C-alpha cells in the first residue's frame, strides 16, 4: 500500500494526516505550532505514524502547507538584503523600483537596484538590446553593496525570459553558483512593478525558506520517510520542495487555499461556500469546480503590492477563542481572542474568560471540556451571543456569494462548532468528518499545475491557433511540474483584449492542472 502524508503549519496549530491510496484518512493529529517549526512537525508526524501503524517507507508522497514565509514578510524577520537588476532602459526610469514600499521593509531588506538596457515590447521585440558589460558592472556594484540575494526583472519578461536568463548567467560568474537568484518571469504575471516586488520579496525570504523546508526534510528523514516532497502554493496546487526553496513566495496564500480544497474533498461538493473557523479568525471563501475563486485586485503583502492570484476571502475577527463581552447592553463576540491560550483560559477548560467556545457548549452545540461550568450562564446572554455569531457569518456568506442562489455551506476548522445547522443563504450546512484537519487534507490531495500569462498578437496566426498554442504551453508547464500527461486539463483560460488600441493584441492567462505523476 502507498500512503500520503499531509502537513499544515498554521499560526496556531500544526496538523498532520495520513491518507491511503484511496484518499481515506487513516490518521490525523493536531499539535501546537512551535517557534522552531520543526518541533511541532516532529510531534505531529510522530503521532500519525503511531496511530496509523504503517511502515514509514510506504509513504511515497509528503505535502507541506505553511505560512512561514508570509509571517516572515509581515513581521520583517529573518529577511535577506536584496539587490535588483531591472531590464527596461530606456523605459522604466519614470517609476524606479521600490517607490511604493513601506520604509520599515526597506530598512530590513536594504534594497539596492540598477536599471539596465533591455526589456521587450508586448510582441516580444526588444525595447533595447542588453549590454553584457553594463550588466556585469551593475552586478559588481550590487556585490559591493553586500547583497545576500539577487532579484531580476524585465519589461514583458513573461513574454520572453531570455534577457532575465542572461542576467542569471552573468550573476553566477560574479556571485558563484550557490548564490540565490530570483527571476521575475518565473514568479508573477503581467504588471512589472507587482512582479518585480514579488521577485524581491522572494529573494528576501529564500534563505529562510531553505532552512524551514530543509528542517521539514530532516524531520521526515529521521522518521524513516523517504517520500517525494511537495509544498502547496497559492492556487492550491503543488510544487516540488526543490522548486519551493527557489520560489517560496508562491506559498504565501496557501493556508486558506488548502482549507478550501480540503473542504471540497471532505464533503465531495465542488461548488460551495466554505467557512473556516479558527481560534481567532474565520475565513469565508467560495469554491467553483473544486478550486477557490481568486481575487482580481492587487494584493498587498506586508505593505508591498504584488499581483498574485489569491483566494477571494472575507476574513472575520471571529473564532473559537473570541472574547464574549457586554458593551452598551449589547453582546459582542470578537475580534479580541484568547488565541492559542483557549485550552487554558476558556471557562469550559477551567479558565475564567468567557469565549465563543463556552457559548457554543452552553447552547448545546458542542460537547467539549466541562459543560457543567457553563450551566449557570444567563440564557438571554447565550441566545444573544449565538445570534451575534450567526449574523456575522450570514453577512459574510451574503458578501462572498456571486448570485442570490442558495449554495451549500461547508464548515471546517477547529472553531466550526460555532456554526449553526441552518443559515440564511445556505441550502444546507455541512460539517464533514475530519473537519478539524481540512487544511492538512487539502495539502495532501493537491494536484500540480502550469500557467502561462502573456500578451499575444493574434493577427498572423489567428485567434484559434493562438489559443491552441497557449493551451499547449500551459499543459507543458504542468507536465514539467510533475503532472501525469494524460491527466492534464486546462482549467482556466482568460482572454483580455487590450483597451484603447485597434490592434489585435490580446492578453491570455491560461492554467493547466493534472494529477501528480506516481513514482
Amino acid at each position, binding site marked *: 500500500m502507498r500512503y500520503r502524508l499531509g502537513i499544515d503549519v498554521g499560526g496556531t496549530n500544526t496538523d498532520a494526516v495520513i491518507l491511503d491510496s484511496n484518499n481515506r484518512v487513516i490518521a490525523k493529529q493536531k499539535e501546537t505550532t512551535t517557534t522552531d517549526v520543526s518541533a511541532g512537525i516532529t510531534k505531529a508526524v510522530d503521532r500519525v505514524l503511531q496511530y496509523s501503524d504503517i511502515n514509514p517507507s510506504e509513504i511515497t508522497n509528503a505535502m507541506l502547507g505553511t505560512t512561514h514565509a508570509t509571517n516572515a514578510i509581515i513581521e520583517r524577520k529573518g529577511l535577506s538584503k536584496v539587490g535588483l537588476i531591472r531590464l527596461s532602459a530606456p523605459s522604466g526610469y519614470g517609476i524606479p523600483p521600490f517607490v511604493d514600499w513601506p520604509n520599515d521593509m526597506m530598512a530590513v531588506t536594504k534594497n539596492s537596484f540598477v536599471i539596465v538596457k533591455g526589456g521587450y515590447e508586448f510582441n516580444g521585440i526588444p525595447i533595447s538590446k542588453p549590454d553584457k558589460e553594463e550588466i556585469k558592472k551593475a552586478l559588481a556594484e550590487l556585490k559591493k553593496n553586500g547583497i545576500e540575494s539577487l532579484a531580476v526583472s524585465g519589461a514583458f519578461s513573461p513574454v520572453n525570459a531570455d534577457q532575465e536568463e542572461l542576467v542569471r548567467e552573468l550573476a553566477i560568474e560574479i556571485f558563484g553558483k550557490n548564490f540565490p537568484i530570483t527571476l521575475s518571469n518565473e514568479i508573477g504575471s503581467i504588471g512589472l512593478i507587482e512582479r518585480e516586488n514579488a521577485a524581491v520579496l522572494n529573494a528576501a525570504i529564500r534563505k529562510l525558506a531553505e532552512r524551514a523546508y530543509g528542517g521539514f526534510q530532516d524531520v521526515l528523514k529521521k522518521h524513516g520517510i523517504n517520500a517525494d516532497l511537495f509544498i502547496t502554493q497559492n492556487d492550491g496546487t503543488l510544487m516540488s520542495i526543490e522548486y519551493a526553496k527557489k520560489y517560496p513566495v508562491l506559498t504565501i496564500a496557501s493556508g486558506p487555499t488548502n482549507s478550501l480544497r480540503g473542504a471540497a474533498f471532505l464533503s465531495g461538493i465542488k461548488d460551495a461556500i466554505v467557512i473556516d473557523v479558527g481560534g481567532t479568525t474565520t475565513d469565508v471563501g467560495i469554491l467553483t469546480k473544486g478550486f477557490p475563486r481568486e481575487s482580481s485586485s492587487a494584493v498587498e503583502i506586508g505593505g508591498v503590492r504584488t499581483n498574485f492570484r489569491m483566494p477571494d476571502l472575507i476574513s472575520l475577527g471571529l473564532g473559537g477563542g473570541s472574547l464574549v463581552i457586554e458593551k452598551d447592553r449589547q453582546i459582542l463576540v470578537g475580534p479580541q481572542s484568547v488565541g492559542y491560550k483557549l485550552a487554558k483560559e476558556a471557562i469550559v477548560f477551567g479558565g475564567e474568560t468567557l469565549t465563543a467556545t463556552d457559548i457554543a457548549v452552553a447552547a448545546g452545540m458542542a460537547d467539549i471540556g466541562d459543560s457543567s461550568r457553563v450551566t449557570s450562564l444567563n440564557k438571554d446572554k447565550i441566545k444573544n451571543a449565538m445570534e451575534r455569531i450567526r449574523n456575522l457569518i450570514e453577512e459574510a456568506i451574503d458578501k462572498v456569494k456571486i448570485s442570490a442562489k442558495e449554495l451549500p455551506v461547508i464548515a471546517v476548522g477547529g472553531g466550526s462548532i460555532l456554526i449553526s445547522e441552518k443559515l440564511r443563504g445556505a441550502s444546507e450546512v455541512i460539517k464533514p468528518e475530519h473537519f478539524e484537519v481540512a487544511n492538512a487534507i487539502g495539502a495532501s490531495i493537491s494536484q500540480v499545475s502550469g500557467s502561462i500569462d502573456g500578451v499575444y498578437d493574434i493577427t498572423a496566426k489567428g485567434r484559434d491557433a493562438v489559443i491552441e498554442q497557449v493551451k499547449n504551453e500551459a499543459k507543458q508547464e504542468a507536465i514539467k511540474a510533475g503532472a501525469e500527461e494524460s491527466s492534464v486539463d486546462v482549467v482556466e483560460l482568460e482572454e483580455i483584449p487590450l483597451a*484603447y488600441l485597434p490592434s489585435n493584441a490580446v492578453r491570455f492567462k491560461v492554467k493547466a492542472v493534472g494529477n501528480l505523476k506516481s513514482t
Partner: protein
Amino acid sequence: MRYLEEKDIDYIAIGAAILGAGGGGDPYIGKLMAKQAIKKHGKVKLLSVNEIDDNGLFIPSAMMGAPAVMVEKLPNGNEPEMAFRSLEKYLGKKAHAVLPIEAGGINSCIPIYTAATLSLPLVDADGMGRAFPELPMVTFSVAGLSATPMVVCDEKGNKLVLETINNAWSEILARNATIAMGLSSMISIYCLNGINVKKYAVKGTISLALELGKRITESNKSDNDPIESILEISKGFKLFKGKIIDVKRDLTTGFVRGKVTIQGIENDTGSSFEIDFQNENLIASKNGKPVAITPDLITVLDKEKGFPITTEALKYGQRVTVIGMPCDPFWRTEDAINQVGPRYFKYDLDYKPIEELVKENLS
C-alpha cells in the same frame, strides 16, 4: 489659487475615476509618477481659469494608447517633458501652464507630473470633464480648434510632430504612431491661448476630482454614506442599486465594447439594469428604458465604499450603485452630440439630458 501636494494625488485619482465614467483605466502608474514628481520638485500651483492670462499659451499633456501595456513598459519619465518642450519649440513660444485634457484614469495624473517636472502651474480645468476614447472628443475640437500641431513621443526618444488637415486625421495618425511605438506614447496637443481655455474648457475639474476623492475617503472613515456625498457635490442622480449578473465584452472595433447587466437589490429589487460601454459607460437603461445617455456621465460605484469601478474591472457578482451626472453644458450642443452622442457610438437612440430622463422615470 491653491497648491497640490503629494497626499492630494490619491484623492484626485479616485475623483477622476468617478468623472471618468468607467474609462481611463487604472491610474496606479500615473499616481506613482505624480507623487514622485511632487516629492522631488515640490508642490504644484493650481490656477483657476479666471486667474490665467488671456494671451498666454496653455499646452495639454497626456498619455495615449493602452494603459494595460504601460503597466509593463513603464515610462522613461522624459516623454511628457519632451512632448511639451518640443511643441513649445515648434511654436516658438513658452507655455504659461499645463492643461489637463481628460478627467479619468492615468490622464488625471500625467498633467500633474508634467507640471511638477517643468515647475509650471496646472490649470484647474480640462477638455472633457470626463473620459472619452478619441482625440477629437474634446470640447476644443467641437469648438473648431485644431488638435495640431501635436507631438507624439516614446520612451526611446522618438518624437513626431504632426500637422493634419483635421482632427480626425490627428487621431488616425497619432494612434498608428502609438501602435508602432509599442502601444503607448505621451502626447502634447491642442495648444490654446487663455481666451480659448476660458471659453471652451470644462472648468474646475481638478478641484472637483480632489473634493470627490477626499469625501469618499473621509466618509469611509466615518459613518457617512460615501455615495450621498458624491451625489451632493457632483449634482448627480442615484440610478440603480444591484448586483452584476453578467458582463459581456467583445473586441469588434479595437475598442473594448460590452454590456453589463445588473439585477436590482434593496429598493430596486425586481428591476433590471443594463449599461452599454465602449471603454467608457455610454448608455444606462432600467427595465429596458434609457435613464442616462452619453455624453452625460454614467459611473459604477462599489455599493458599500463608493469607490468607482472602471469598465475593465467590472465583474460578475459585484454589488454596485450606478450614478449618473449631467455633463458640461457644452457637450449638449447639436455639434457636440454629433461627435460624442449615442449615434456616434452606433446606438439607435437620441440624446436626452439626464435630468429629463430621471423626471420621466419618476412620473
